[in-house]
């Protein structure tokens, strides 16, 4: 179906992203492209329909043939009937304003007869499961629905190959599952070849037949999912766990891993997961920094936040979790004071940040979802200098704190040319040039690879240790497991649960990290937990005994 022959690509004036890639993909395969940010995942995907280099520029060596058609001779637009391509943010590719007309747009342009068009639109609506959305306006859809509409819009051309760039990165766990279910149905029922790049490998890995790993040194490693990724920096929690536990071959699904825990229990050294080894929850001890009561936010007739009470304490990191559109962002903006608030009070050290004007920044700092909107200078150096001037600090202070967050960022680079992780670090450094009592982050992990997430966790931990109260709105459960002390769960604009991270994350079916799912109901969330317990356990008990012990303990702990 897809034949890559000795493929190499370099951006104009840049280094070679990958070279010597020879590969043949069969129909009906699901191929996962993995790698850190900036390793060329997106570029590799774009070569499959010729967008690279026809559209992006750059130099391509070797050849890409899809169904015998070579991207050397055929422009991307003439590949549309073979390769369907959905970019990183599907909403940016929408051409019309309604679901049905979006699906029909491509066919209208190619002059498909009205009766064929009607039939194909109906088929596609069912295929991607959006028949109930057909009359909706595109901007009223959730991110997961938008992703499925974008899938439908390329499917109407009848492609044999689907190329998807990070289809689930921005989605909450439930939305991601819906999109992945749609993708696997296309692979199983229609025999489409799907090539997708993803940062959230834990979501996609169980479905992949083949993995292409780009380690970032110009090579491409290709092979079985478990073998290729084990031991790399992008390995998802389950693979890291197998490494710690010495499982071989590594289980790729939570179900397999569970069986391994139960079946091979006798051969395993027993993790003794006692609370004192894991550390007692660090919640409710610091002084209250931010106190919000009855916060309401309304957009027209719709109430996004309905009477939320929240306290953020010094030194504590809180995750605000919930579906896309559950009011997380609106709440953070209302807490900061620059978003509007229709009711309730917010007090930081006794002052309402909404009325504090120029002082608001020192009370609550907010890093928005799209950090590029914060940055407006032409270079990193200029940006740091502006931040110093704004804060009245000696020149170089922000630059130094940036180095403390992520070292080695080129000061001459344009902020938009930085990787996602570097840009986030820059925005953090700029925002924190004025020391703030509270730090709020809105979806900081969109587009971050595991290494960048680790860096983020380290810097936020450092800030918390210096007494800052931190709240992070996120649906990245693996990040929450590593980072936070406390979880606030929101639904329909209300706080539905609030408690220590360990109890909240291991107790929720939708927001449980992989490790927690494997060992449920034991209270382990991260590979580090399991490792700590293993080393701490002197007695070589059976895992099964411990699991039963934890079931009892857990049941008693539940209210």
């Amino acid at each position, binding site marked *: 179906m897809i034949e890559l022959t000795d493929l190499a690509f370099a951006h104009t004036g840049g280094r070679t992203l990958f070279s010597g890639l020879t590969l043949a993909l069969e129909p009906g395969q699901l191929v996962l492209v993995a790698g850190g940010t900036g390793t060329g995942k997106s570029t590799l995907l774009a070569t499959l*329909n010729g*967008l690279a280099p026809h*559209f992006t520029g750059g130099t391509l060596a070797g050849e890409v043939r899809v*169904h*015998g*058609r*070579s991207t*050397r*001779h*055929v*422009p*991307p*637009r*003439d*590949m*549309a*009937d*073979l*390769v369907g*391509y959905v*970019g990183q*943010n599907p909403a*940016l*590719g*929408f*051409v*019309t*304003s*309604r679901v049905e007309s979006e699906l*029909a*747009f*491509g*066919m*209208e*342009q*190619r*002059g*498909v*007869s*009205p009766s064929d*068009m009607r039939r194909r*639109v109906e088929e596609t609506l069912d295929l991607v499961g959006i028949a109930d959305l057909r009359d909706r306006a595109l901007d009223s859809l959730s991110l997961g629905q938008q992703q499925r509409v974008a899938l439908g819009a*390329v499917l109407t*051309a009848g492609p044999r190959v689907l190329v998807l760039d990070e289809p689930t990165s921005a989605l909450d766990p439930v939305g991601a599952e819906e999109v992945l279910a749609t993708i696997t149905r296309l692979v199983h029922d229609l025999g489409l070849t799907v090539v997708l790049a993803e940062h959230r490998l834990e979501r996609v890995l169980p479905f992949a037949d083949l993995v292409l790993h780009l380690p970032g040194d110009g090579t491409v490693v290709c092979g079985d999912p478990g073998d290729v990724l084990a031991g790399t920096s992008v390995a998802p929690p389950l693979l890291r766990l197998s490494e710690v536990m010495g499982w071989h071959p590594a289980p790729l699904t939570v179900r397999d891993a569970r069986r391994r825990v139960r079946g091979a229990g006798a051969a395993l050294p027993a993790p003794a997961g006692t609370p004192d080894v894991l550390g007692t929850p660090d919640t409710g001890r610091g002084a209250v920094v931010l106190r919000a009561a009855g916060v309401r936010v309304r957009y027209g007739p719709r109430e996004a936040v309905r009477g939320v009470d929240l306290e953020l304490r010094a030194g504590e990191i809180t995750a605000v979790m919930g579906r896309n559109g559950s009011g997380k962002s609106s709440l953070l*903006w209302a807490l*900061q004071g*620059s978003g509007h608030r229709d009711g309730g009070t917010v007090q930081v050290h006794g002052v309402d940040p909404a009325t504090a004007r*120029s002082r608001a*920044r020192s009370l609550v*700092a907010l890093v*928005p979802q*799209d950090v*590029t*909107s914060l*940055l*407006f200078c032409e270079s990193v150096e200029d940006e740091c200098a*502006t931040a110093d001037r704004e804060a009245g600090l000696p020149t170089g202070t922000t630059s130094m704190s940036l180095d403390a967050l992520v070292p080695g960022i080129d000061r001459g680079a344009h902020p938009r040319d930085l990787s996602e992780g570097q840009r986030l670090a820059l925005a953090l450094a*700029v*925002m924190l040039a*004025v020391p703030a009592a509270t730090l709020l982050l809105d979806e900081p992990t969109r587009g971050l690879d595991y290494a960048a997430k680790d860096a983020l966790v380290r810097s936020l931990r450092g800030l918390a240790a210096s007494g800052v109260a931190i709240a992070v709105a996120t649906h990245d459960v693996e990040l929450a497991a590593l980072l936070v002390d406390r979880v606030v769960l929101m639904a329909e604009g209300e706080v539905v649960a609030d408690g220590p991270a360990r109890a909240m994350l291991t107790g929720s079916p939708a927001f449980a990290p992989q490790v927690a799912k494997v060992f449920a109901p034991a209270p382990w969330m991260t590979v580090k937990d399991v490792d700590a317990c293993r080393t701490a356990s002197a007695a070589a008990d059976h895992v099964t005994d411990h699991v039963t012990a934890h079931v009892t303990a857990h049941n008693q702990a539940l209210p």
Partner: protein
Amino acid sequence: MSVHPGAWWVWALVLAGAAAATTNLLVLALLLTAICLVVACCAGDAAPFRLYLVVAAVVVVVRVVFRVVFPAGGGSAVLTLPAVRLGPLELFGTVTAEALLSGLAGGLQLAVVILAVGAAHTLADVLDLLKHAPPALAGVSTALVIAVSVFPSLGRSVVDVRRASRLRGASRRLRGLRATVIPVLEGTMDRSLALAAAMEARGYGSHAATLPVGDSGPSASIRPGEQGAATSTATARSWAQPACVLTAVACVALAAYGLFDSAWPGWSPVVLTVAAVLALGSASRLDRSARRTVYRPRRWTLASTAVVVSAVTSAVLLLVAVPAVIRQPPAVLAPGATSVTALSVLPDLTVLALLAPLVAAVPALFPSLDRWRRS
């Protein structure tokens, strides 16, 4: 009863034309009422209409205030303000009833035109209408479709960026402008590139239907000999068509100007409109190779015809059957004229002048007709 979007636009433009030829306050007010009535009865979501209402009200107020600030000759004085001299300009002074009335009539004329366009926008989806453009104009209509759908996101990104820049502390210096303009422009650039990439990947402008599957590329393309001849005519056509479309747009703009400028001869809007139609017609005849189809085209129903007929009847009644002295009362026509002896605030009205604007409100009955037929 579904009405074709084109019918609503014809209805609105005909009414706007009729209003431009009327200065009778009562007739204009009736036209205005008719338009608002139709929107209130037929529109599913009248939210966009609110903005047009506000703009129309502002226009009327500005026109009247203008007449107070810049006095215009004699007439019966209503109010005397202290005059202010600014070089060659004299501001304020005596405000005459004629001046006020002519300001009000001019404002109402514009208000009817604005509300008519607003009604068409509210009642008929612009995107839906553009879809029905002739296939040869596909390039232009697609560009317009994209512009109309993408424009709101530009407004949203301005709001987002301003909100984000406030996070860095509100400073009202030049930096504030820079902090808004640069991220918005950069974001717009990024978005346009993403849109272009998506359209390219989805086969916009493709000729792939002629490519057999499995071909090896060059063999499928046109042979070099034919290519030269084909390209030169294609280039000529690709220039001629946009030229025709631009001519049409220019003619429409000039016609609109001619409609309101009394210095232009009365036949000029008509001739310019005909020229615009001819230019559009030739543009769509020039290139008939375009393969573009319409997904679920809207049918031209009986109701659509009724909508067009109602507007045309109303306009014809107003322009032909109503005497000019009623349609354009002299007091309003020439604010400077002192010959008017008895000026009444309310102009005269005939039965036909009363009925004509109301005919345009006939489409307002459609929803209730629908309900009656169903029960």
